């Protein structure tokens, strides 16, 4: 086990974590501002990936595809908010879970109807192909770009929330919804904007990850569940918590899958070690989540006290 391999896995973990952050940020904002649990967030990720692959396939340009995927996810988010989600704010969590579960069924089948049952493939843009030398390891340029992209979007989101008028309203909405409505802020429009913003981030993540995975129906749900783990660890409603949680989950999951089988191989035979290691590694982040909830039932950075 060389240092180069460890560094490569660590970078993979950070890259995975940053993509999870893009998913989790929208989820946690929607919960923080509107108090809504949105299972269909993974479907928006899927829409971003599908539209990016379709546009990139038609035009031959990845960046046009990226814009297409992001726009489609944001538009789908706005439409879904106005048609369905809006009716759920006053309902209990059970109704929200069910209605958004129904949305997953609808959106997944709609994608299957439009794009057919087979996965789409999205190529890494030519400018970002190949590897780059980082001293002791040759690392994929595209994955490195994803890390840069993730950091840039995170900074942009921070600036949006901390420095702009919209950000002030979002923060006000998180601390007291009724009050900002009473102060004359158009709360319905704010809700639609926040939901569409979250959808755009999810769509962006889907489009970016689509180039290193296959784009298929059902791709959003595993990521959605990881994003839930992230925001529960980080504290629901906290964007900072989502960042910390996403990096923790990304790095621990990746390193666990890399290190645990090797650890067990040091005293068990290879086949057994691989089995036990893989089984434990896949449970690791859920164990982390359980531990966090036992010691900090509201997450590491709770937005609501």
């Amino acid at each position, binding site marked *: 086990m060389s240092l180069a391999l460890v560094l490569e896995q660590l970078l993979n973990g950070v890259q995975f974590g940053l993509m999870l952050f893009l998913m989790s940020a929208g989820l946690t904002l929607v919960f923080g501002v509107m108090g809504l649990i949105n299972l269909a967030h993974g479907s928006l990720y899927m829409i971003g990936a599908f539209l990016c692959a379709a546009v990139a396939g038609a035009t031959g340009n990845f960046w046009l595809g990226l814009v297409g995927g992001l726009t489609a996810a944001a538009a789908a988010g706005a439409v879904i908010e106005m048609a369905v989600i809006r009716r759920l704010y006053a309902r209990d969590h059970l109704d929200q879970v069910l209605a958004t579960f129904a949305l997953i069924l609808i959106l997944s089948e709609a994608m299957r109807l439009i794009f057919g049952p087979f996965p789409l493939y999205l190529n890494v843009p030519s400018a970002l192909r190949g590897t780059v030398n980082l001293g002791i390891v040759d690392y994929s340029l595209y994955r490195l770009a994803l890390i840069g992209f993730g950091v840039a979007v995170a900074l942009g989101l921070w600036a949006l929330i901390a420095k702009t008028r919209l950000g002030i309203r979002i923060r006000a909405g998180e601390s007291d919804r009724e009050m900002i409505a009473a102060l004359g802020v158009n709360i319905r429009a704010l809700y639609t904007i926040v939901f569409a913003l979250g959808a755009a981030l999810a769509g962006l993540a889907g489009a970016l990850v689509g180039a290193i995975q296959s784009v298929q129906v059902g791709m959003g749900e595993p990521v959605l*569940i990881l994003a839930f783990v992230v925001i529960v660890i980080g504290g629901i409603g906290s964007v900072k918590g989502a960042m910390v949680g996403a990096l923790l989950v990304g790095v621990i999951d990746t390193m666990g899958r890399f290190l645990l089988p090797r650890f067990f191989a040091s005293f068990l035979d290879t086949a057994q070690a691989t089995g036990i290691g893989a089984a434990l590694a896949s449970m690791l982040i859920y164990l982390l989540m359980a531990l966090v*909830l036992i010691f900090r039932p509201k997450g590491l950075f709770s937005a609501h006290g």
Partner: protein
Amino acid sequence: MDSTRKEWLLNALIAVALFVVPLWALMANEPFIITLATRIAILAIAAVGLNIALGLGGMVSFGHALYLGLGGYVAGIAAHHAFNGTPIFAGIPGTNQMLIIWAIAMVLSGALAAVVGALSLRTSGIFFIMITLAFAQMGFFFTLSWPAYGGEDGLPIFVRNQFPGMNTARPWDLFLIAYGVLIFSLAVFALLRAARFGAALMAIRQNPDRAAAIGISPFGIKLVGFILSGMITGLAGAMMADLTRFVSPAMMAWTMSGELIVIIILGGVGRLFGPVVGAALLVGFEVFFGGLTEHWKLWLGLVLLGVVLFARGGLIGLIAGRAQHG
């Protein structure tokens, strides 16, 4: 006629219909319909289990597939070792006796529910939903990557497990067993709901602070409710594995947990026969629309969305009127 009597009449009708339709299928030699009815009965048992947590206790468990899958794996592993004649571990032999398998499935599911419940009930609301989901995902990924019992390929049950005095290879016999267990689990639910325990559980759901003020400790009561709930769902899992003669990680998938909630909502939350109606609707929908179009889940989604947004009492609520209690 007041709505309570209307609901009882409706319940009796449903119970009779679920028996008469497969009986007719037996006469008409339509084994497929008997198997469908068996599937409805077993799914309904699983949902009756969840209904204790969700309907009576207001605990939105998004991870009940964990107990369903655990029960399924108990049946699968016991049958696997009985078939091969190998011990499970430390000389404990496998078994092909349903009654023994059910008992083990219920004990293990109850124990797992006790651990999950004790940790999850420290939280509430959205956190409870997510932590139960996370525990179920843990089980899902564990079974997926644990190679000893088939991993992601699942584990077939070559010969269906035995029940005293019945030939479980015959669809009608298996249906009778499932129907009997369903009626039994419905009776357990009704007794629980009518007992002091059920009253306490419902009081905690409606107002935990007030319940605590009159001397009911929410944590203990909810935990017991959660354990009973997991046990019944685990029992259903063991039966489900025997029906399909196959168990795989898919039984623990989060969509399965979602389907169990959907069943309860379609039928009506907290209603005695809600799970039966919901299971019949879901299976019926799948068979009917699944035969018409491969995109039947699109329509299921639309119907579900409609029920959540516009018909909150489920089908029993639509027919028998609103429930009297919150």
